[in-house]
């Protein structure tokens, strides 16, 4: 055995930081981590379509699997470990109560196709959550089935198009600010619309004049994120809403940033026609390393009839789940169906538990604290970093990379140095309207102590950057399970799965 030149150990491990091979490199035929009784002998009724070859799955025992994934988990950063100021992502605390309740008997074990008489509590839960969402947004209806924010966007834009078609209109353009999240234009395109970008003004908001100039009878609507992705409230939002309505279009609101205003501003009061709510952001259902989420869409009176199937209504014998548009209790105008079954029930349970825990007062306080934390970051960092815009921000603080000018250090380098310090970096290079953007969203679940440590560290790093220590930044991170990874190489010759013969880099073991 040779000593690993990187770690100095024979194993390549570093104390508690343990290298881990792929499950495929650990498997042995015949071994399993699940004991099942021998199947009773029966005459096979597969109609001859039986699998012939082996699948190639590795065989591991339970102890190996538990160890494998425990080790892997320790190679991740997480909210449970520290500050995770990813702007636009609302990485807040995920209460364990909600995990417990989502798994409760009578919820986690409900089949989606049980008869209505056996799921009244489930429908009540969906209905209760719908009530909270409507009350908090000041909107009359909500479509519960979308699986995430982007899916909610589809739902909203489809509803808009269905409403327009119902009016007999075929409009072809959707206006989308340049600062918008990528899902906005992608959604518009996925609904058959041309995307017409609107520039930002020098205050980081929609350029009202440019917007108005784009209006016309072929404009289906506008998609606006508010607070926007620069962390700013669109202060001309009422004018924008009036203008789009006057032009016969609809106002889609991207609710990804709802956390800043929940309990303080109701989108319904802003003239919104539809807005998705990322339950996995504002209402704290866990991000899970990428999903699942849930993206209910609140709808105005104008769009409500077009909501997709299914939905819950109050019937005379209890709650009913309307799954067909020709049902006598249906609107008859549903634009279709977006998803198998009825929506992300597991996320509904978590979100409702979160809302009930905070209550009306707590949600309002949470929004206020989120905004306070972001402004505290902004105020504390504004002299060392370069704020992208003037004035108070909402729930996230946006900086550009002017403070790194002439240092030879990029936003990316700066972010990687933060990793060594024990912080997850902020969102980088987004929104696109700002050069080398650093978008920091601390959320309300960070303590002042934690923020102060973050602030001191970022300031110290900024000073170090300005002092000319570029090499240290370009080398970072140095203290992580892996250092910078070759993304270009990965894309050039993609290795997307393990194969017995796959090239193994310098094997980790």
């Amino acid at each position: 055995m040779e000593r690993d030149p990187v770690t100095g150990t024979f194993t390549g491990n570093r104390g508690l930081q343990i290298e881990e091979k792929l499950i495929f490199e650990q498997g042995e035929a015949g071994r399993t981590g699940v004991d099942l009784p021998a199947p009773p002998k029966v005459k096979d009724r597969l109609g001859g379509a039986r699998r012939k070859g082996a699948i190639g799955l590795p065989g591991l025992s339970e102890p190996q699997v538990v160890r494998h994934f425990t080790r892997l988990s320790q190679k991740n950063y997480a909210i449970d470990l520290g500050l995770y100021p990813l702007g636009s992502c609302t990485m807040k605390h995920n209460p364990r109560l909600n995990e417990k309740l989502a798994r409760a008997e009578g919820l986690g074990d409900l089949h989606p196709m049980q008869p209505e008489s056996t799921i009244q509590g489930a429908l009540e839960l969906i209905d209760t959550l719908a009530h909270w969402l409507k009350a908090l947004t000041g909107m009359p209806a909500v479509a519960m089935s979308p699986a995430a924010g982007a899916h909610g966007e589809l739902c909203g834009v489809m509803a808009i198009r269905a409403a327009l078609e119902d009016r007999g209109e075929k409009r072809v353009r959707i206006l989308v600010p340049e600062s918008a999240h990528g899902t906005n234009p992608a959604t518009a395109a996925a609904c058959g619309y041309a995307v017409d970008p609107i520039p930002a003004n020098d205050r980081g908001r929609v350029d009202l004049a440019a917007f108005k100039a784009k209006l016309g009878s072929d404009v289906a609507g506008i998609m606006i994120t508010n607070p926007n992705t620069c962390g700013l409230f669109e202060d001309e939002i009422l004018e924008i809403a009036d203008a789009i309505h006057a032009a016969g279009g609809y106002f889609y609101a991207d609710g990804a940033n709802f956390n800043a205003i929940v309990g303080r501003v109701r989108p319904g009061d802003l003239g919104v026609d539809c807005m998705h709510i990322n339950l996995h952001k504002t209402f704290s259902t866990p991000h899970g390393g990428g999903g699942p989420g849930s993206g209910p869409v609140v709808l105005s009176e104008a769009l409500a009839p077009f909501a997709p199937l299914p939905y819950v209504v109050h019937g005379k014998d209890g709650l009913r789940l309307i799954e067909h548009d020709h049902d006598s209790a249906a609107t008859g105008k549903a634009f279709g169906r977006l998803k198998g079954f009825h929506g992300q029930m597991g996320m509904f349970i978590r979100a409702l538990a979160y809302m009930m825990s905070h209550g009306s007062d707590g949600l309002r306080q949470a929004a206020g604290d989120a905004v306070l934390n972001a402004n505290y970051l902004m105020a504390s960092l504004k002299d060392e970093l370069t704020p992208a815009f003037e004035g108070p921000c909402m729930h996230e603080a946006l900086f550009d990379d002017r403070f790194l000018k002439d240092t030879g250090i990029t936003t990316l380098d700066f972010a990687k140095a933060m990793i060594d310090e024990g912080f997850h970096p902020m969102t980088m290079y987004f929104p696109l309207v700002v050069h080398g953007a650093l978008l920091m969203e601390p959320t309300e679940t960070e303590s002042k102590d934690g923020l102060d440590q973050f602030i001191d560290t970022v300031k110290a790093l900024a000073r170090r950057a300005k002092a000319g220590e570029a090499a240290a930044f370009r080398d970072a991170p140095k203290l992580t399970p892996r250092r910078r990874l070759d993304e270009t190489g990965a894309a050039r010759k993609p290795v997307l799965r393990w194969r017995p013969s796959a090239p193994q880099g310098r094997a980790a073991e």
Partner: protein
Amino acid sequence: MRYLPLTEADRRAMLAKIGVPSIDSLYRDVPERVRLKQPVDLPPHQGEIEVERAILGMARKNLGTGRAPSFLGAGAYRHHVPASVDHLIQRGEFLTSYTPYQPEVSQGTLQALFEFQTQVALITGMEVANASMYDGATACAEAVMMAGRVTRRTRAVLSGGLHPHYRAVTATHARFLGFELDLAEPDPDGAEDLAARIDANTSCVVVQNPGFFGHVRDWTKLGEAARAAGALLIVVVTEPVSLGLVASPGEMGADIVAAEGQGIGNALSFGGPYVGLFATREKYVRQMPGRLAGETVDAYGRRGWVLTLSTREQHIRREKATSNICTNSGLCALAFTIHLALLGEAGFTRLAELNHAKAVQLAERIAAIGKAEIVSDSFFNEFALRLPKPAAEVVEALAERGILGGVPVSRFYPDKPELATLLLVTATETNSDDDMARLAAALREIL
């Protein structure tokens, strides 16, 4: 307020640093007249005890499959998920992390996704798989849209044996993206001739295996016909456990596989969150929707993983992206991966055998009653019964006896009276002999 770390003293100090008198004043950009002066009219904050009481109160109004013998399928399957799966996915490092955009501190999620992609490719018999979609139905719609991109054609043929929700979701996208669908009639007998429907503008033929009505088919011939016409074969799987026993879509020549992964690792959870599986041929990978984890090396040359080929995705490509998907089903994919890692080849194939054997036993028991006909000529763990009465009534009568007896086809096709007596019945490894005996006894009474 247990989730809020700021104290009043903290707030005061922070406001002072910012130089404003109150939190409210930070909202100065919000037009005055839309600022709420009061909390919204909803209940105030509550402790764990009260929240738990309220939500468990709702739970108690349901009859969960944990308390009742249950034979429901139709795209969602009750399997036993080993306790270690649920333990591991709840580890904070997995549960409370974001999409692995910073690979240096996300190797755990990335490696697990790479394993997921490999597992999905293996069980579907395909070359590559992505890092998950929302669910099987949306994966199916994405597959049809992808076939359109690959073939530059605008007409898709959908089997009558395809799950009605998958048909509906695909139809919704077709409506808005303006592609044409040829929807074959619901096909309980598995007798449809799809090859005949393929024309020069057909981008794909979509079939399901095992079909919605239970039957298992070898779709090789159809795939050949499609390919001969320049169209793709899309195979949908709603019960992933079937892949342990039934020939894989890859073996049948599928070009794209869209599947529901819930049956491995994930709870029923009233229909969501689930996990869409999506696999295809290597040559189509740049047309694929969704995230991909790929292998690479770090600055020291050590193997590691990153998200890759993101030029297909919305955050880079915006309106030109292959899909608008962002958040996917990461944690459900992880549950899938852990469960399948536990099963391994031996466990997975045995699980599938066991499911099939249980279903055969159940079919025999029910056939023995002499009142219901097994419609499916072949099946994996779910089959269609033709009953002497409307299936919905039978299901209600069973529910009154505390049995969740199956899914009436009329729930999906209420407008097709000819399907009203069809009941889909599933047996899995979770059904004891006693469960089956209870169902049979109850059916004997009711029918």
